[in-house]
Structure formats: C-alpha cells, structure tokens
C-alpha cells in the first residue's frame, strides 16, 4: 500500500532531529589534524624563503633583508607542503579554517621570477 508506506515514512521523519545544523549558532568542531590554515611561530623563522619557492599556489611571501613573512590565506590551497619543507619547523597547520574577510590579505605575490 503506497499510502500506508508514505504515512509510515512521514511519521518516521517527524520523530527525527533535523539533519542539518543551525550553522552560525552551532559550529561543528574541526577534526583533529584537518588541514585548516597555516600558522607561523615567527621568532623561530629564519626567512630562508624555502616555503615561498616551493609553495604550489605562490601564497607565501618572504624577504630575508626586511625580515618579512606573510601568507595570503585566500591564495593558500592548504596542501601543507610548507610545513613539510620548513627547515626550522616553525610552520604548523591549524585545524580551524581561515576566517572570511572583507579585504584581500597579504601582498600580491608575483608569478614571475
């Protein structure tokens, strides 16, 4: 009986909690070791520029003379390669994602060398 089947599924759904989360009020905690955003422990950094050269998305900009290290989180593709290659291990990956912003962060890294 289609009607009986339908009524039973309707009743089943009525007893259930919603499948979605009420987003801004409840945020699902990030999984452990999820790739969220890159953070740097700046005192340890020697500004060697390896992360800048290896970054697939050209999101990192470093300058050894002026001691600058910046990352454009909107350009970053969260591949975690810079964390793997950093010689001082001063980079790490946080599991929470970068927050939205109204401006573009960081300098525009040039594609040409």
């Amino acid at each position, binding site marked *: 009986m289609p009607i009986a089947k339908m009524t039973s599924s309707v009743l089943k759904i009525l007893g259930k909690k919603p499948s979605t989360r009420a987003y801004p009020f409840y945020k699902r905690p990030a999984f*452990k070791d*999820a790739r969220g955003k890159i953070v740097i422990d700046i005192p340890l950094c020697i500004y060697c520029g390896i992360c800048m050269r290896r970054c697939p998305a050209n999101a990192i900009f470093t300058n050894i003379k002026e001691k600058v290290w910046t990352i454009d989180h909107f350009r970053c*593709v969260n*591949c975690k390669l810079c964390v793997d290659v950093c010689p001082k291990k001063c980079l790490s990956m946080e599991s929470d994602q970068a927050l939205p912003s109204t401006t573009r962060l960081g300098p525009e890294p040039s594609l040409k060398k």
Partner: protein
Amino acid sequence: MGKQTIIPFGPQHPVLPEPIHLDLVCEDEKVVDVIPKIGFIHRGLEKLIEKKEFTDFVHIADRVCGICSFIHGMTYCMAIEGVMNIEVPPRAQYLRVIWSEFSRIHSHLLWLGLTADAFGFENLFMATWRIREHILDIIEETTGGRVIFGASKIGGTRRDISNDKLKDILKELEGIEAQIRECSEVFLKDSSVKSRLVGVGVLTKEDAYKLGAVGPMLRASGHDYDVRMSPYAAYQELDFVPVVENSCDSYGRCVVRIKELYQSCRLIEKAVAKIPEGAIETKIVGFPKGEYFARSEQPRGEVVYYVKGDGTKMLKRFRVRTPTFANLPPLLKVLTGCQLADVPILVLTIDPCISCTER
C-alpha cells in the same frame, strides 16, 4: 522535415555548474546535430610542470579535479613511480585502495544527486547529498581535507589510518550502506524516474567501443573494461570483478553507478580485512628519467597520465587525458537524435567534469 534551429546550450546552463557549450541543431523538438565547445577555463597545468619540482607537483595534480582529486594525485604518483621503478609498500597500496573507493562513493553519490536534480526530483537530490556528507566526514577525518585529500605522495602515502580507526570506518560504512540502499530503491524502481531514464540515450556496444567511451558509460554498454582489472595499487588481491550492464541506456549507467557504490563498500571491507602492517612510504632517491603511461580508474572512467623526465628535478612533459575528454565523442553520439528535453540528463549521464578536462 521541419525547419532547423540552432539552440545554444551553455556555457552557463541548468545541468551542472561547469562550463560546456553545445550548439544543438534542432528540427522541432528533435536534436539532429551537436557541436560541443569546451575550453572556457583552460588552466595550462600541463605546462606548469616545467616550473615546479616533480615532488611538489603532486599537490597540483591533486587539484586537477575537485571530485576525483585523490585518484588524480595517486595516478601522478604511479606515473613517477613507474619511471623511477619505485616499489610502494603494501600498506600504502591498501590505503590507496581505501581512499580511492571512498572517493568513488562520494563521486557517484554526487552524480546520483545531480541526476535527480536534472530530472527534477529535488528531495532525492538532497537525500543523496546528505549521505555523501557522511562520506566526506570520514574522508576529512582520515586525510585532513574534505574533497582535496592531499594524501598521496610519491612512493607511498602521506598519512596512515590507525587500525582502530579502520574498524570504526567499517561500522560507519555499514550505516551509510543502509542509507544508500534506501535511496537507490527510488532510482531503480520509481516509475517517474524510470520514465526519464529507460531507453534514453542508447549507445550501442559497438559504438561505445569505437568512440572510445570509458568508465560507467562503457560498462553500461556491455563491455567489461575497468582499469582496476589491470592491477594497480592492491586491486589484484581483492578479487575485483567489474560491474557490467547490457541495457546501453541512461538507466543502465545509473544502475552501474549504484552497483559500483556497493562494490566500493565491499572493496573497502576486503581491504580493511587484509591490510598489512608496515611502512607507508619508500624514500625516493634521484630524479625521474624516462617516460611512462600510468592509467587508473576514476569514478568517471579511465584516466591516463603521461610523464617524461630527463633526469632533472623538473619534468619535461606531463599530460593528463581525463575521462570526460574521452567521453565527449560518445556524448555527441547519444545527443544526436534525442529530444531537446532529454539534453540535460544526457549531458549528465557521462558524468561530465569539464574543469578537470581543462587541466
């Protein structure tokens, strides 16, 4: 014979958010000729290989496609391993199978949802994508990324899954499979769904082979061709038998994909039962010299990676032949002679991924 009208379809169209353009030559409601056009977003990733080290390029290969990302990265690694003769440790091979199959489940669920959306069954679309969300959670938990896994590495994998976690995954998978079963009932038995799929877009067995169709498109036309049969990763140890349908129509392609969902669940179960202990990567020494074709089975079909190196850290040539590229000629074939109203569903049955075609 009626008057011929050319109806432009796309690059922005109601089927899926991917830029493909078709010029449909119609006589009344019947499509008599089709000319496709892609290339709106060609990214030139193949050229980028000359600027990035071959080890770092894995992360770019991962991002060739947003849906079958892991298999792209893995096939790139397989190509480099083929050139350099690297033996991948068995545990890594099994992990690759597990992640590949998860990526297949999530891609097929995505396709089922989009198909439901294309024939106007919005509830079903939401139901399938809800199941997909559980799969994405498992993927994020084990690899760190929701759709871009970032877990492949030349010579092995980047991450390991602990044995306890593997057991938890199996338990979760059981629940997910029950939900898939509930949903697939609708796809396979509902009369309104059937009326949109059965007998629509017939691609005969000969045509499918001659036009070079790949993946579910080929298997729904009665060919038992699946790259997973030519062993790569750990498939040779998992008694893999491809899913084949003989109905040659859109319904057949839907059935193939649904059966592959269950098959992927079985493969994951077998892989978890058999996974050996041990290292997950081999260290690579030296630079690739030589050329190699690596092939693997993506959710959409066979993908071909060609790499050529000359012994420096930059490769000389890198080429990807994505499954959608191979499925374009069969798409033209099935579109010729169809009804205009069936165009969206037929474009979808090849599971198009234009963005990865324009790598």
